[in-house]
């Protein structure tokens, strides 16, 4: 079973490289039972959206 620390590392890496099957499986299992990491994964998506917006000059 992944620790939350390991899960956060994979949730970052999935933004930069394709995860292996085993990594994806382990991560899916972890976020299913861990609310904190489930929220963290959504936060990674928000972070990327914010960066897209900021980096393209689309801020108000």
């Amino acid at each position, binding site marked *: 079973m992944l*620790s*939350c*620390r*390991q899960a*956060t*590392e994979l949730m*970052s*890496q999935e*933004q*930069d*490289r394709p995860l292996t099957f085993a990594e994806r499986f382990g991560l899916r299992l972890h976020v299913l039972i861990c*609310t*904190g*990491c489930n*929220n*963290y994964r*959504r*936060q*990674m998506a*928000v*972070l*990327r*959206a*914010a*960066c*897209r*917006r*900021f*980096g*393209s*000059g*689309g*801020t*108000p």
Partner: protein
Amino acid sequence: MYAMDPDRQSELNALRPDLLRFARLQLRDAGAAEDAVQETLLAALAGSHRFESRSSYKTWLISILRNKIVDTIRSQSRELPASSLAADEAGDERLDDALFDRRSHWQDSARPMHWADPEASFEQQQFWKVFEACLDRLPAKTARVFMMREFLGFETEEICKEAGISASNCWVVLHRARLGLRTCLETNWFAGAGT
């Protein structure tokens, strides 16, 4: 010398502080940031595009500026030694201790929250002030690698090459940046009255 449309010039003057902040965040060098913005403004004045709104003008200027920043980073890439990344790591350990317990699970006080309606936050200028302050708080080299990836659109392999670090080191640095940034945003925005 270019003939300057007075309207265009006042728009440029109004947007200049935004451009300068954008360049400074990424280059962390006031002189280099100033140079990149100057070159952007010259290129913009030479162009004869017409824009429907100030926001589309800003988007266009930022895209020119991004290219200037990429040029600057490429010309200074040898100045990013792995040793200075190591210097960033002391702060990383302190952050880890605050977030994770000995079993590497979330501390109760640090468990990530649900961020309500981020799109609504994106519409608020105050959110972006916090966002910039949080970026600015990242260690310098970590921030450099992160912004190359997220703002300038570099692929990881290219960042590794420019920064002279291994791919796995690059992923670690990007992870540290994201962890630091989301923690800062949660503490200073999403957990507070900002939302």
